[in-house]
């Protein structure tokens, strides 16, 4: 671990760029990132008013489109464009994070190294997709997020920062190395 904070930050930025570019390296990865991003968005939006979502979907699962559009509008009305943009960004980053985490898991399995420590950040990053923007909705109040500082946007920004941090830390899953940020 040589180099000052500036070097570390440059490494992190480069790793983040590599991590974000990883889903572009194959059609399957791109597709998996897109599917996970879409699914994450749907889950986050539906979890902003779980009681309503459950009722709509149990009455008629094909109404999922109605539920997602109604609650998308609700998120916009409660938190504005910023809140909506943060949820969408969150979803896209989660798509990347899950795709990268899957690659890390496969790689770990192949090399049979004790890489669980390296895999963890990616998985955590993916798992966090459900902790920042969505989980407060589980309290049941659509207004729960609105009661938080900046209508809950602070929490969403925190969640996104966490995702970016983990993505940058893990870097490109193809070249990620475990010994303190060096690259293979």
């Amino acid at each position, binding site marked *: 671990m040589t180099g000052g904070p500036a070097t570390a930050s440059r490494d992190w930025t480069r790793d983040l760029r590599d991590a974000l570019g990883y889903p572009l390296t*194959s059609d399957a990865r*791109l597709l998996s990132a897109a599917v996970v991003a879409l699914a994450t968005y749907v889950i986050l939006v539906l979890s902003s008013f779980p009681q309503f979502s459950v009722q709509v979907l149990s009455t008629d699962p094909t109404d999922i489109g109605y539920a997602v559009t*109604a609650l998308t*509008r609700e*998120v*916009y009305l*409660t938190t504005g*464009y910023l809140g909506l943009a943060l949820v969408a960004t969150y979803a*896209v980053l989660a798509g990347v994070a899950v795709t990268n985490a899957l690659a890390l898991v496969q790689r770990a399995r192949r090399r049979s190294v004790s890489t669980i420590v390296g895999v963890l950040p990616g998985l955590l990053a993916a798992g966090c997709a459900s902790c920042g923007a969505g989980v407060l909705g589980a309290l049941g109040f659509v207004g729960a997020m*609105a009661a938080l500082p900046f209508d809950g946007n602070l929490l969403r920004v925190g969640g996104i920062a966490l995702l970016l941090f983990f993505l940058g830390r893990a870097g490109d899953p193809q070249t990620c190395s475990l010994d303190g940020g060096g690259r293979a």
Partner: protein
Amino acid sequence: MDEEGNITRRRALIAGGAVLAFGSGVAYIGSRSGASGQHYVPDTTHAGSGTTGFDVDLDGRPIAGERDAPIDIYYWTDYLCPFCKQFETETLPELGREHLDTGDARLAVLPYPNIGEYSTPAAVWGRCVWSQVADSDPDAFWNWHAAAFAEQPESGTDWADDEMFAAVTEQTAGVDLSAVETCREERGATIRERIEPNVAMAQESRIQGTPGFVLYNRDSGAAGKLVGAHPYENFADAIDQVRRA
């Protein structure tokens, strides 16, 4: 390994396009205005009396529909709740025409302040406006009710204050602002107290947000619950189920 493992221009373009389409789709859905048109004013409105079999206190509350309608719909709402506005503009007009004006059901408006600091004062305004016009011009209450929801801006809860609600009241024909102000001063505390038991009833029915609805068959005692701005079809199904239960 010509393409596999490399970032190709094609994939970069697809990803960029998909992100752009996703972002603009979300922004479009979020910002498009809901269906509106004329707000709903029931054919008949009456003031409730007594406590129902479901233990909801309807004494003096505004109720849309016929007094002897077989189904009660208890509608817990908050003037600061955007989802309630969606119900009011997209579902209530059809629900009213098909089930309230026909005598199938009646809908009682009950406050459930939960969104912002001004939720409770807004509920008091609503109750005082209703008290003032209940006997003389009940339609004025629905006009005021729709106008209050219409004041909800694009985002946030900061819009709601004394000044805004006074302006809505002043602009609604048939409502006397000074009488409403007097009611707020003299009866405000009592009104707040009387909101509590019905909110407790909603919570007991595990309604954790607004809009929340309990549909109650006054003959059989069967009840059903809906939470959120459901499409009209879900209300029609629920009314049908409760009627047959």
